[in-house]
């Protein structure tokens, strides 16, 4: 039996390191999260409020908050409550930091970026 075009595309787009495929599909599944992960990769010791992180990333705090909370939920980031203030930072977990490093380094490859964009758009449908 001959695979149809969609199957072929899906197989082609799934052709990446399984850990990174899972990272893209389940953790960095929006463009804002991608931006945030890149920001924290470049500035790994940032710890701040939603408003300030949104300002650093040049985005709206209302849009950034649910994305940060998703990243906390998926273990990419951590959230601490101090005197009623939520402070977000990159998870202090070697495995997760290594995965973030691998994702950002993989993004230097155009083919990987195309595949990541494909999965993010599919996930947003």
């Amino acid at each position, binding site marked *: 039996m001959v695979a149809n075009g969609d199957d072929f595309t899906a197989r082609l787009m799934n052709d990446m390191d399984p850990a990174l495929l899972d990272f893209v599909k389940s953790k960095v599944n929006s463009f804002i999260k991608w931006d945030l992960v890149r920001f924290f990769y470049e*500035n790994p010791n*940032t710890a*701040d409020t939603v408003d300030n992180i949104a300002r650093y990333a040049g985005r709206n705090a209302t849009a950034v908050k649910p994305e940060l909370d998703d990243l906390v939920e998926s273990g990419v980031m951590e959230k601490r409550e101090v005197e009623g203030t939520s*402070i977000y930072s990159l998870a202090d977990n070697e495995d997760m930091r290594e995965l973030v490093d691998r994702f950002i380094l993989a993004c230097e490859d155009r083919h990987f970026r195309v595949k990541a964009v494909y999965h993010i758009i599919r996930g947003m449908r």
Partner: protein
Amino acid sequence: MDHVQTGITGLDEMLFGGFLPQTANLVEGAPGTGKTTIGMQFIYNGIVEFNEPGLIITFEEFPQQYYHDASEFGWDFEQLEKDGKLKVIMTSPEVSRLDVESVGGMIETSVSRMGARRVLVDSITHFERLTQDPVELRSLEYSFINGLKREGLTSLLTRESPTLLGEASHDDSNVAFVVDSYTLLRYVEIESTIYRALLVLKMRGSDHAKDIRQFEITEHGVEVRSKFEGREGIMSGNPRRMVDSFVEAFVKR
């Protein structure tokens, strides 16, 4: 008492050996005078010359900017971070204040894990956005500085001065009263050339040089040179030759 050497040529001599341990030390100056360079050099020298790991707390510049600026002087901050000797923390005054006051905060954790001994806070000026009330501001700064001391850190705090040349304008900050030492950086115009001047205004618990010295930012960082000879009014930004002042005061009368 042992001093915490900055390792900056000429500055330790002015400080009679360096800063005192677990003190807060303010370096104030206009944009481009070299405050952050002095701070980075204090941290870098601490790590490579004195085996004292350090933290940089930045309220505005991205860590990438520090990596880049440091590399211009041949200081590899990224490698030092990988080696666990340095941590460049980007945060805000409100969060850093809460952090230093809380148990198990990032600063406390860094001190215990890395053995950090020095910290650069760049810049303390950003605390001014926390409150309009000068009394409350002084209290916030005092509390933050005491938190750093409690952690055993010797801190260098930068403060922005909006005045490029001439006398500094009055503002509401009292941070100069809260810190243990206060160093002022100024631009000085002499015969149509801009020079940089440095003056240690105060240092609690130790004597220090009282003269105003010229300094330069070289490819190796800041180097403090000799004092300005035969000039007065250096800190006004527009000094006069002392002989001119003498002539004006006595000969032209």
